[in-house]
């Protein structure tokens, strides 16, 4: 077993999103019998914890790693250290300044723009909206906000503020409750992290405002999909984490084997985000169940 080369996939936090990515790495692992594939989740979503994992991986002998850096802009040094000893991919969030071979993942600004379009469609006459997120210090949250603001620029939709909850679900829900209290005329609520949308959904239903307040979300939490089916939620922008996992591992193996032809000029392999709304939600649900089954 020591002879096998090690490929690793390092996430930025513990989340369901990554469970789907794990399925992708598992699929790739089956196709690559010569490699040992590791899937690593930091105990805490911090650069320090990721750095420790990377150091330990290098110490343990490593052929390639795909990582979602918690803090891309400032992780150049450690990423370059890794890149000097192994194949380095970034996934989910990119670190363009680093010597990574390529990026496999979402364009979060584009995803934000998609959400912004959904908002504009749901609120043709404009109105006030509030955004909800775990923390604002992750790049993906900032980029999504940026995309949304870009899309709604010029329309009558106005972002009041962003409420953070530190990934405390209770707080996430009470933030929504308090927003509904404070702004009775609120027109739309947007959940930026996967769990935010279900909490919005529950709070809006409990307040008896289902349908009156438009909800737009990100990611594919089951409750989000349910909300879309019953019409309470307008739609959600989903990424394809399965592809992150599958493609990263597969392409790293390919790269190690000497094939570099698949790398695009801009070194970005954008896995497109999709809008799920009432029209395609049933189909998507079936697909998700399928994927998460084993």
């Amino acid at each position: 077993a020591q002879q096998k080369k090690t490929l690793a996939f390092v996430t930025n936090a513990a989340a369901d999103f990554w469970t789907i990515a794990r399925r992708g790495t598992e699929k790739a692992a089956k196709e690559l019998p010569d490699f040992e594939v590791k899937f690593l989740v930091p105990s805490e979503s911090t650069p320090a914890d990721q750095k420790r994992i990377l150091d330990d991986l290098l110490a343990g002998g490593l052929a390639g790693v795909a990582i979602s850096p918690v803090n891309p802009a400032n992780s150049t040094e450690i990423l370059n250290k890794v890149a000097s000893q192994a194949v380095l991919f970034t996934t989910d969030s990119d670190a363009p300044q680093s010597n990574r071979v390529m990026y496999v993942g979402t364009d979060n600004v584009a995803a934000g723009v998609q959400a912004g379009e959904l908002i504009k469609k749901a609120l043709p006459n404009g109105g006030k909206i509030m955004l909800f997120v775990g923390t604002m210090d992750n790049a993906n949250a900032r980029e999504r906000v940026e995309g949304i603001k870009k899309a709604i620029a010029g329309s009558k939709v106005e972002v009041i503020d962003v409420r953070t909850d530190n990934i405390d679900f209770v707080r996430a829900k009470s933030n929504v409750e308090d927003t509904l209290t404070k702004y009775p005329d609120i027109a739309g609520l947007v959940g930026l992290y996967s769990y935010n949308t279900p909490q919005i959904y529950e709070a809006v239903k409990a307040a008896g405002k289902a349908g009156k307040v438009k909800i737009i979300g990100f990611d594919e939490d089951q409750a989000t999909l349910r909300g879309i089916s019953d019409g309470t939620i307008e739609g959600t922008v989903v990424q394809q984490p399965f592809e992150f996992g599958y493609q990263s591992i597969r392409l790293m193996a390919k790269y190690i084997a000497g094939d570099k032809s698949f790398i695009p000029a801009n070194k970005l392999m954008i896995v497109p985000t999709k809008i799920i709304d009432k029209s395609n939600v049933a189909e998507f649900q079936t697909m998700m169940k399928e994927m998460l089954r084993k």
Partner: protein
Amino acid sequence: MGKKELGLVLLILVIGAVTATINPRFISAVNLVNMANLIGLYGLFSIGEGLVIITGGIELSIGSMFALLGVVFLDLLVERGIPWPVALGAILLGGVALGAIHGFLITRMKLQPFVVTLCGLLIYRGAARYYTNDATMGFGYGNEGSGTLAWLTAGRSFGVPHTFIALLIVAAIMAVVLHKSVYGRYLYAVGKNEEAARFSGINADRVIAAAYMISGLLAGLSAVFIVFYTNSVSPSSHGNFYELYAIAAAVLGGCSLRGGEGSILGIVHGTILLQVQQNLVNLLGIPSSLNFAVMGTVILAGVLADRELQKRRMAAVANMGAKAARPAAAVAA
């Protein structure tokens, strides 16, 4: 109601009045109901924490218990389709069992409560994360089976959230236990002077272990309430820092970490104060990033004010004493 609780009530009323003046929606029915709901949620486990603090101990693993018991509960109910009364019973028992382990390690193995429950904090969270492979668990599509329980925990009667009603019931029971029963007296005695309690024939070990078990039971109960509030549990973050909220509520409510002091009414009021503070951050439009800072400031101000009050009271008593010693002096002064 002691002087301490009275002070807290006044503080809550003043803050409430100020907030209501700035934003009248603070006292709108819907906001009060929301607050009552959260007060119920947090109050339940804060009472358990308070009991442990009165023994002179501390319970740091409550948040992690929520994660572990939460995922086990969802697993039982949703994945395994076990009837809700059984699942509920299992979780309550689980909470008691964890409390019993803490009690055992503290009283029999003579380990410090801080260390034992710190290990609990780490182990239970790790176990929850391993159990679910770090995936968030939720009701998925199978929430229907637990409709009754969902109503019991997240529903309302006459507009009052059931969490709040549960808190009132639990607080009433625990108030009698703590302030009127033999067990409560023992708890205070052990908290103040464990050795003297032993020399009076009190089985201090059992008294202490029972406090951790009651705290575990209430943590189990809260775990279920919280699951129905959030509808899902993400094992790596669910309940993070909740033990600190509980400790803060208990301390604001007059429990001393040295043991032997505190009351149920105080703990409940401490919880209310903290929840009012959280609510007003949102209602006054204070940035969420400042929430922690405001909370810390409120706690600090609360304990400082309490200290001042206490000093004044002691001075007043001393004055009375001095007067009593000179009965000839004018009483009108």
